[in-house]
């Protein structure tokens, strides 16, 4: 924009300037963006195309070309027949495990974090900021250092290797970023509202449920998006805190694709990869701008 106005200032006004769409600058700009988009879209294209080909065509053809003969066999096989170890019921097992892990983890972590954020803004007590600082530092500390102590805690509680153990772990590690997110959002709600409710006699939970919750639905959606994709995509905690029968989808996918036995079926592998990526992709495309707003708000305002 600045370039255009600069050029205009230099040559001076000569009547109404015809609007040119195809300036050199625009060609450069859109050209670069298109090339960049190609790099970003290429893997998705390759994934879809490979997963729709039969194995002979994969061996013969070009990974970038669309299938000559479309087949959904790889998808069926990836979903229901692919083997990991002794289980040959496909990725469906991992999918349902991931669902059972993700749903309670998301609800629990958002419930805890939103109350935390609310308490940190409106009900500060002595030391609350200290705990919050530890929490934020905790989000940067490599998980590896806390892996084993958590194994011990879960074992003591009888939850090691169970889905609920993993749910707790996800809730704990989701807490820092979500608390930060809610704390920042609640701080933008005018304090007068809170004070008025106090005057009217509302207590801690009354204000939370009647004022804070209804006023901050967008941030709850943002938190939901962050948590669903984050927990669905987790690998490390799934490997460490569950056993093979309960492995989440990502772990099972890796075991299917990177297993050394058997002939490599690339089309099935790509169908399985796509299936695993489908849930976060759907969340992403449906949520659109909220996803962007979420990550930008969570990161920049902190």
């Amino acid at each position, binding site marked *: 924009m600045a370039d255009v106005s600069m050029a205009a200032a230099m040559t001076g006004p000569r009547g109404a300037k015809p609007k040119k769409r195809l300036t050199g600058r625009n060609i450069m700009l859109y050209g670069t963006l298109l090339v960049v988009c190609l790099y970003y879209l290429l893997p998705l294209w390759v994934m879809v195309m490979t997963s729709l080909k039969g194995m002979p065509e994969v061996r013969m053809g070009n990974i970038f070309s669309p299938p000559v003969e479309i087949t959904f066999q790889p998808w069926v096989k990836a979903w229901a027949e692919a083997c990991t170890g002794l289980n040959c019921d496909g990725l469906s097992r991992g999918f349902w495990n991931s669902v059972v892990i993700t749903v309670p983890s998301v609800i629990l972590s958002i419930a805890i974090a939103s109350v935390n954020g609310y308490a940190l803004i409106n009900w500060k007590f002595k030391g609350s900021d200290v705990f919050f600082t530890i929490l934020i530092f905790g989000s940067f500390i490599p998980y590896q250092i*806390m892996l084993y102590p958590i194994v011990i805690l879960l074992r003591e509680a009888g939850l090691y290797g169970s889905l609920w153990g993993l749910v707790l772990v996800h809730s704990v590690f989701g807490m820092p970023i979500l608390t930060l997110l809610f704390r920042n959002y609640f701080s933008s709600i005018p304090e007068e509202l809170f004070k008025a409710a106090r005057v009217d006699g509302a207590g801690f939970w009354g204000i939370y449920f009647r004022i804070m919750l209804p006023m901050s639905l967008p941030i709850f959606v943002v938190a939901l998006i962050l948590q669903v994709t984050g927990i669905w995509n987790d690998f490390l905690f799934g490997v460490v805190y569950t056993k093979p029968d309960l492995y989440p989808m990502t772990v099972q996918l890796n075991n299917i694709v990177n297993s050394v036995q058997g002939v490599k079926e690339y089309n099935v592998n790509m169908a399985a990869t796509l299936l695993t990526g489908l849930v976060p992709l759907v969340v992403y495309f449906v949520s659109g701008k909220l996803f962007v707003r979420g990550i930008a708000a969570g990161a920049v305002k902190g």
Partner: protein
Amino acid sequence: MSATTEAATPRTTSAARPRPRWTRNISAKIAAIPMIATALVIFLGGTIWTVVYSFTNSRLLPRTNFVGFDQYERLWETSRWLISIQNLMFYGVMSLVFTVTMGFVLAVLMDQKIRFEDTFRTIMLYPFALSFIVTGLVWQWILNPQFGIQGVVRDMGWTSFTFDPLNNPQTVLYGLLIAGLWQGTGFVMCLMLAGLRGIDEDIWKAARVDGIPTWKTYVVVIIPMMRPVFITTLVIVASGIIRLYDLVVAMTSGGPGGNASQVPAMYVYDYMFQAQNLGQGFAASTMMLLSVLIVLIPWAYLEFGGKKHG
């Protein structure tokens, strides 16, 4: 400290009720128990526990048989660990430089009041929604020497064409980098774009009035103004890099040649849960913690040192 807490405590408007101090805000304190427990028991307690036990010779089970710095001496004599550190440093520097520059340049392009901005952003950001496992497996397939890019170019007649980064110890890190950048630059672009949009329009007008060329305005005015955004981005990206694990597991499992693409997080996992040598795992994870603190403490000092935050 107590003075500021006093001022921040919501004032009860009813007549002063004489209540013991600790019962004030009692529901808030109860509601904060999960946070306090997480902060103290898991984040603080867990970290201290691991650091303490890194000085023991625990193998299959944690034991309190302290052996001083033995684990650390062994760690720094293990070639696999040394390679892991080198790999991470190389990957980390490359990844930081490329994600931040690419992210910034893309954000500048996106900020030119272009059409279809939402479409472009959607395309650039979708990989960020995918897991490292999915990312790694797709790129492993694209970089497959027989069927991937190399195979396609060879089929077109250029039979000596070689592009097989994942099977060559010299180039395997570049292979990881291609996938890592694909996954993460969209996110950095969004952070940078939010930063650019946060800059006052008047700054641009002033620069235009003074006749400063656009590129120069970016370098001289905008980038310095975006310092907080850059620092936040660097910290987020850097702390992600130190954790690098899933991507390597999916793409190379640490290979080729056994350990050409090993990273510290892998070393920790293998020693803790596979090789049943807990002491080594603890020592290695303590070193990871140390490296994060080296990044984090100067940042926290710069950001929160002088002023009161929150």
